[in-house]
C-alpha cells in the first residue's frame, strides 16, 4: 500500500470494500472474467493453440490464416483444425494438434447432415451449451458477445462521464446564467426519445459499434450532470474552496485539484451501475434488431433467437443465466463501492 502512496482515506475505503465479501468476490470474479475475455481467442476458438506438423511448430491463434495446403491438405482456404486433429490422430505419424477448450469460433456453422440446428448441449461435440439456430456454438457466442458488450459499455461510460463531469462541474461551479442555460438544454435534450433516434439511424445506415456508442453517448451524457452539479455546488460553498480562491488559484485548478477529488465518491459509485445499464442497453437493442449488424455475436440476438425457439430451451437458458449472473455481480460491486465510499458511515442521527 505504501508503495502506491495512497492517502489514508482511500486505504480506509479499500479496506472497507474488502470487508464487504459479496461485493469483493464479485469484483474479483468480474476482473477474472474480463481478463479471460481479453484472451478469449486462446480459450474459445476454431484455430488450434498449437500444431506440430512434420517437426515444425505452428501457433495459429494470432497469426495469419494457414491454408489447408500448409498441413498437406487439398484446399486453399483456412485449415479446419478440428478435422486436422482427427486426421493426425488417425494417421498417427507423430503430428498433433492442440485445440482450445471450446474448439469453435463465434461465426462458423457446425451443421451436420441429418440433424437440424439448434443442437442441444453435447460434451461429445464440445458444444457445452449447444448450438443456435444456424449451428453456431453458444459458448462462443456468449463469450465474444460478452466481450463486445463490456467494451461497448466501457466506451460509452468514458464518453458519458467525460461529458457529464465537465459540464456538471461547470454548471455547479459557475452557476448563474450558464447553469440556467444548461439546465434547460439538458431538460430539452433528455426528452428526445432515444429508441426512435436509434430506429431512424438504423434505417439510414447500418449501425456499427462506433455509431451506436456515439448515438447513445449523445443522448446519455445528461444523466451524470445533475449529480455532478449538485456535488460541485455543495463543495463550492466549503471553506477550502474560498481559501484556494483567496490564494489566487484559477478556476480550472480549483475544480481539477480541489473539488473533483472530493466528489469522486459520487462518480465511482455510479460506475458499476452505468456498466450494467450499458450492457442491458446493447442487449435490448440487439434483441429488437436495432443493434450491431449480424453476424456479430451478441446476447440480445441470442435472446431473441431463444424466445422464438422455446422448444430449444438451452439457448434462452444460457443467455438469461449469463445475463443475470453478470448483472448481479456488477450490482453487488456497485453496492459495495457505494457503502465503502459512504462518508456517513460513522454518522449517527440522534
Amino acid at each position, binding site marked *: 500500500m505504501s508503495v502506491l502512496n495512497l492517502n489514508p482515506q482511500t486505504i480506509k475505503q479499500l479496506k472497507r470494500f474488502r470487508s464487504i465479501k459479496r461485493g469483493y468476490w464479485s469484483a474479483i470474479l468480474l476482473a477474472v472474467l474480463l481478463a479471460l475475455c481479453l484472451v478469449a481467442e486462446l480459450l474459445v476458438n476454431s484455430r488450434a493453440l498449437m500444431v506440430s506438423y512434420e517437426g515444425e511448430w505452428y501457433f495459429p491463434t494470432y497469426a*495469419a*490464416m494457414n*491454408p489447408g495446403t500448409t498441413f498437406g491438405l487439398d*484446399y*486453399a*482456404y*483456412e485449415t479446419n483444425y478440428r478435422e486436422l486433429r482427427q486426421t493426425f490422430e488417425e494417421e498417427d505419424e507423430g503430428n498433433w494438434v492442440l485445440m482450445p477448450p471450446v474448439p469453435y469460433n463465434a*461465426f*462458423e*456453422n457446425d*451443421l451436420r*447432415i441429418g440433424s*437440424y*440446428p439448434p443442437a442441444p448441449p453435447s460434451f461429445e461435440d464440445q458444444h457445452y451449451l449447444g448450438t443456435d*439456430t*444456424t*449451428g*453456431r456454438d453458444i459458448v462462443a457466442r456468449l463469450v465474444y458477445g460478452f466481450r463486445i458488450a463490456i467494451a461497448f459499455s466501457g466506451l460509452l461510460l468514458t464518453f458519458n462521464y467525460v461529458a457529464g463531469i465537465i459540464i456538471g462541474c461547470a454548471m455547479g461551479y459557475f452557476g448563474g446564467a450558464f447553469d440556467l442555460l444548461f439546465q434547460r438544454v439538458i431538460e430539452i435534450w433528455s426528452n428526445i*426519445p432515444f*429508441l426512435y433516434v436509434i*430506429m431512424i439511424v*438504423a*434505417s*439510414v445506415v*447500418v449501425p456499427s459499434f462506433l455509431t451506436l456508442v456515439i448515438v447513445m453517448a449523445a443522448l446519455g451524457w445528461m444523466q451524470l450532470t445533475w449529480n455532478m452539479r449538485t456535488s460541485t455546488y455543495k463543495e463550492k460553498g466549503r471553506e477550502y474552496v474560498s481559501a484556494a480562491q483567496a490564494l489566487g488559484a484559477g478556476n480550472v485548478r480549483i475544480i481539477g485539484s480541489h473539488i473533483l477529488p472530493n466528489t469522486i465518491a459520487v462518480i465511482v459509485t455510479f460506475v458499476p*451501475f452505468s456498466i*450494467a*445499464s450499458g450492457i*442491458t*442497453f446493447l*442487449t*435490448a*437493442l440487439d*434483441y*429488437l*434488431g436495432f443493434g450491431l*449488424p*449480424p*453476424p456479430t455475436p451478441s446476447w440480445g440476438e441470442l435472446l431473441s433467437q431463444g424466445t422464438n425457439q422455446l*422448444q430449444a430451451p438451452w439457448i434462452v437458458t444460457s443467455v438469461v443465466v449469463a445475463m443475470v449472473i453478470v*448483472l448481479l455481480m456488477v*450490482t453487488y460491486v*456497485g*453496492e459495495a463501492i*457505494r*457503502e465503502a465510499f459512504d462518508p*456517513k458511515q460513522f454518522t449517527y*442521527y440522534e
Partner: protein
Amino acid sequence: MKLIKHFRMRDCRLCITLSIFVSILLMVGCGQVEEAIDAEEVGTSEIDDDLEVVELPPIAVAEGDGLPDQLPSDLEWLTNDSDPEFASVDAIQGGTFRTTMSTFPLTLRLVGPDSNGSFTGYLRYNNFGPVSFHPYTRRAIPAIATHWAFGSDGRSIYYRINPNARWSDGEPVTSDDFVFAVQFMRSEQIVAPWYNNYYTDRIRDVKAYDEYTYGVQGADAKPMDEMHYNYGFGPKPRHFHVMSNKWVEQYNWSPEPTTGPYHVGEVSKRKYIDLDRTENWWANEVRFYRNRFNPTRIRIKVIRDVNTAWQHFLKAELDTFGLVLPDFWHDKAQGEEFDNGYVRKFWLYNQLPQPSQGMYMNTNESMLSERDVRYGIAHALNFERVINTILRGDYERLPTFQLGFGDYDNTSISPRTYDLVKAAEYFERAGFIERDDTGILVRDGERLSFVVSYGQSHHTDRLVILKEEAKKAGLELELQLLDGSAAFKKQQEKKHQISWGGWASQGLSPRFWEHFHSDNAKRTQTNNITAWADPAMDELIMQFRGSSDLAERIELAHVLEQMVHDSGVMVPSFQVPYTREAAWRWVRVPKHIGTPTSGSIFNTQANSAGIFSSGGLLWIDAGIKEETLEAKRNGESFGAETIIQNDYRTKI
C-alpha cells in the same frame, strides 16, 4: 435510517438497470395495441351536414383512343366450354368453415385509404370479372361474361354478359355497371391515386352497346389472354354507390354487393367477420363454378398471434392451418390429433409463378461489372448447404430468374452450383490468385469483398451460412441488414453492391423489360437493380413486349431467360413450389387435392393465389365431423394420414 437509505439506493439502481430493458420492449409493443383500436367505428350520422353528392362525369376519351360507336359486325365471339371441370361432384353443400386473420380490417371498402389489408382479398375474390383463368390450362374461362371478342385494333376487347348474373342484393349485372366501374375508379372521391391512374392510363375507353354487351379499350396491344388479364376489370354496382365528398367515410363499413358466391354477413367488430353464401347464387349451375364454394358460411376470426391460432386449431376451433414453415410441419404438427388421424396433413406441389429470389449484383460496381467475378460468386454460394441444413431440405433451388409461367418457362437452364474449383477458375481468370492473411482473395491490393444488403431479418440465418461457405472460395460477403424499406430504397437507387431479395411474380407471362432493359439501367427508381444493359437483349425485349403471337412470345421468353442466365447478374436462390396445410378430418377436398395453380388447398374463395380460379373446392362433411369428434372423445384412432400430392411437381 441507514438501512432504509441503503435499500432505497439498491432498489433504485436495480430497478433502473433491469427496467431499461423492459421499458424499451414496452415502448415498441405499445404501437401495435393502439393501431388495433384504431379500427373505431366511423358514424355516418354526423357527416351528413356538409355532404355534397357528386355526379360522376361521363368517360373521357383522349385523342387517338376510343371504341367505335356501333358494335363492330365482324367480331368473332369466343367462349370456353371445353376445358375440363375441376370441382368434385361429391361435394356437399352446407356447414361453416372457420378460419382466421391476424388483424381486424380498418375498412370494408375495396378501394380507398386502408383498403389494402389481408381481408380485402376476400372481398376482391367475390368481385368477379368478366372472365377468369382455368387453373389447369391457364386459358380464359367465362365468369360474368359468357363470350368475348377481340377488336381489330389489337387493344380492344368486347364482352357479352351472362343475363342471369346478379349482384348479391338481387339486382342484375349490366353493361352499365362496367362503365360505372371506370367512372368510379377514375373519380377523386375514392381517394385511390393508383386506381385513378390505372383506369385512366391503362384503360382508355369503355362503352356499353346494349344491356349485356360492352367493350373495353386498353393502352397497348397484347396477346389475347393478357388482354383479359390487363383489361378485364370487374363491375361496380351503380345502384349501390352514391358518390360524394364523404364517400370514403360513408362507405367505410358498408360492404358493396358482390357478384361472387359470398357476401359480408355478420360483422362483430374486432372479433370476427362472417361471409355468407349468396342464396340462389346465379352461377350455382354454371360450368366451372358448380360444386364449388360449398360451405354456407365462412367465419373469419381475429387471432393476432400465430401460436395462439395454432392452439385454437388444435382445439378444433379452426378447421385448417397452414404448415409451410418447416418448424410447424416437422416439429409442431405432432401429437394425438395427428397420430390418430383426426387431423390430416397435406403437401401439394404446385406450379405457380415463383418469386424471383436471389442475389442481384449491381454491375455499376467495378468488380461486379466483370463477368468472371460474377460467375465466380455464383459458384461460391452454397445454397445446397442452406437447403439441406436449416431449411431441412424443404426448399428447392430456384434454377433461373423467372419460373412458373407454364410454356414460357425455359426448363433447360440449370443453376450454377457451389463448386470451389470452378469458382477458383473464374476468380483466377479475373486476376484474383493470391489470398491475404484472412484468407480472402486479392488482386493488386483489392480484396474480393462485397456488401450484401437485405431487409428481412429472418434471412440472416441463410446468409450467415452462405457467408461462411463463401470464405472457402476466398470471397468475403459482408452482411448488411437494413430496415425493409431502407433496403428497398437502397437497391432502387442502385447504391447496393449485392442485393438479396426477390420480386413477386404474377400474371401469365414473365417480365423482362423492367428488370433488364437498358432504359431502366441508367435511371434510378427502376426495377433494373443490376443496372444491366445489353443492346441485343433490348431488341428482343421490345420484340417480346410488342408481340401478340403466343408462339413467338414463348420462344422469345426462352431466349431472354437464357440471356439472363448467361449474364450472371442474378444468382437465383430458393423456391417453394408447394403449399403444406393441416385440416381436421371433416374438411374434404377432391381426389386431386388441388390444381397446379392452387396457392392453398383449403381456400374457400374463387382464387387461391393470383389470377387463377383454383379455390373453393373444399366441403365440410357433417357426418364425418360427428364421427371424428366422437372418436376423439373415446380416444379411437383412424391412423395417421399425410397426403403428398406431387403430380404437378416440376422435375428439374
